[in-house]
């Protein structure tokens, strides 16, 4: 039986279920989308193609910063190769929801990350961080198998979706926008 959503990125703009472990949805601020993928990952984790594509799509919005040692420090990523390692960092494991990616405005003055980014109230960090140039947050959901992307506004989220589609197409991956139930089913039927 063919899998209509195989080898795809999945986007869901109406996710509400708490089992995604992304806190109360939708977040009270900004524009939010739930991200998933159906790319085979026989050895678990975020497949390299997904990591590279996500990194490229996020970098199209601005440089990225992710959690790094010592605790509280940030690692700045300005190219896809650097950025894709945030999905594979043992110090701040994506798979244990111990990682994030902050999309920075060019003139960002961010120097450290607040603890709330790692809590279920992570979305509330966006209005706090906006003054220092944070325009978006990517955070892992349940088991690191999905992610939430929160942008400061709809326009930025639309720009992210567009860059994701472009980057995905370059690596041979499709992009689908689904409602929450279809999103769940597509993930469940992925190889």
């Amino acid at each position: 039986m063919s899998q209509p959503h195989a080898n795809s990125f999945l986007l869901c703009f109406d996710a509400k279920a708490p089992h995604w472990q992304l806190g109360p949805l939708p977040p009270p601020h900004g524009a939010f989308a739930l991200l998933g993928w159906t790319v085979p990952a026989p050895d678990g984790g975020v497949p390299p193609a997904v990591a590279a594509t996500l990194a490229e799509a996020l970098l199209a919005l601005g440089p990225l910063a992710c959690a790094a040692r010592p605790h509280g420090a940030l690692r700045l990523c300005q190219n896809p190769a650097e950025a894709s390692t945030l999905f594979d960092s043992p110090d701040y494991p994506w798979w244990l929801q111990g990682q994030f990616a902050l999309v920075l405005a060019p003139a960002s003055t961010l120097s450290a990350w607040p603890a709330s980014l790692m809590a279920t109230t992570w979305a509330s960090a966006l209005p706090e961080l906006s003054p220092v140039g944070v325009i978006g947050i990517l955070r892992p959901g349940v088991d690191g198998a999905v992610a939430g992307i929160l942008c400061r506004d709809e326009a930025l989220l639309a720009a992210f979706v567009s860059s994701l589609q472009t980057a995905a197409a370059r690596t041979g991956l499709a992009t689908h926008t689904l409602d929450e139930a279809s999103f769940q089913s597509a993930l469940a039927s992925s190889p």
Partner: protein
Amino acid sequence: MAHFFAPDRSSPGYDVDGKLAPDSVWRMRILTKQRRTIGLWGGQQLTVRSNNPNVVPNDGFAETSTRADGLRFLSLLGQSAGTALLEARQGNSGPWCTLQVLVADVDLSPNPVLPDQPLSLPWTITDATVPISGSVPFAAGVGMASVVRIPVPGTNGLAVELSPRGWTPKSGSTSTLFIQDVTGKRHLRLDYGYNVKSKTIDYHWNQKGTANTFKISDHTTVGKGGAAMYKGARYLRWGGRVLLVVGVAVDVISIVQASKPLKRATEVVAGWAGAWAGCKVVGAGGAYLGTAATPGLGTAIGGFVGCVIGGAAGYYAASSAAGVVYDWAEDTIFTPLPPAPAPQ
């Protein structure tokens, strides 16, 4: 004629003069603070009193027999060192018979008094005096299992653990069992929560980089055995740490209270080192066998069981060996050799 006599005809401490009867006693000795019994024959109606209550108090003498058979047994307390006269009389008449009672701290006479009571004080077991016994080796085994990385042979550095590697949110991990490398990057972990494959909340494996080793793919749902293992791992993590703290505390107390603290400290340190080594070695063997039987769950069960057994045995063996070595070293005397002239 009434007379005093030694009970059970024992003579030590009783001086028999045979004047009133063949077995009549004229004097007896009592060690201070002890009681001795004297028999009175033919004195059913007589009143018996000590003339020196400071030495032998008139405390009723704890009579133990009825007077119907004509025999009375009186228990005299040697209150303090000195001499008292025990008089048996009827009414205000003169004494029918008397007994001199000599109370002394030590009886150095040729036929010294033998204490009626056992020489040792009776044990009164209370919470404070109850002998301490326990199973620190068991605590060491379980405690070690909760904190030690139990290696899994043939997996290129994977080990069984109860905590994740890397930073985790304050809410903690939803996984309780981890078979992971030292960074946590390669891992197989037993998780509870929403499963994107089964679309339900269940117990399942999550893995990264271990599929070839254990043949378990990401998000594989586990059955009742896995659920039991998930809960057991959680209990072991916290219960084992409690036992570890208790075991260490008991050992520290044992060092403080020991008559040879240095020896005891040597035993304790060696014991814990042995527990660690035993846990690692036997646990690795158990994990290897468990992997062969049931990769994943068997690995963990084998590892933990082996660790507990090896930890307890290692503690016991190393602690005992350290005690023997300490005694050997302590009893060893090095005699300096006399100086000898250098060979020509």
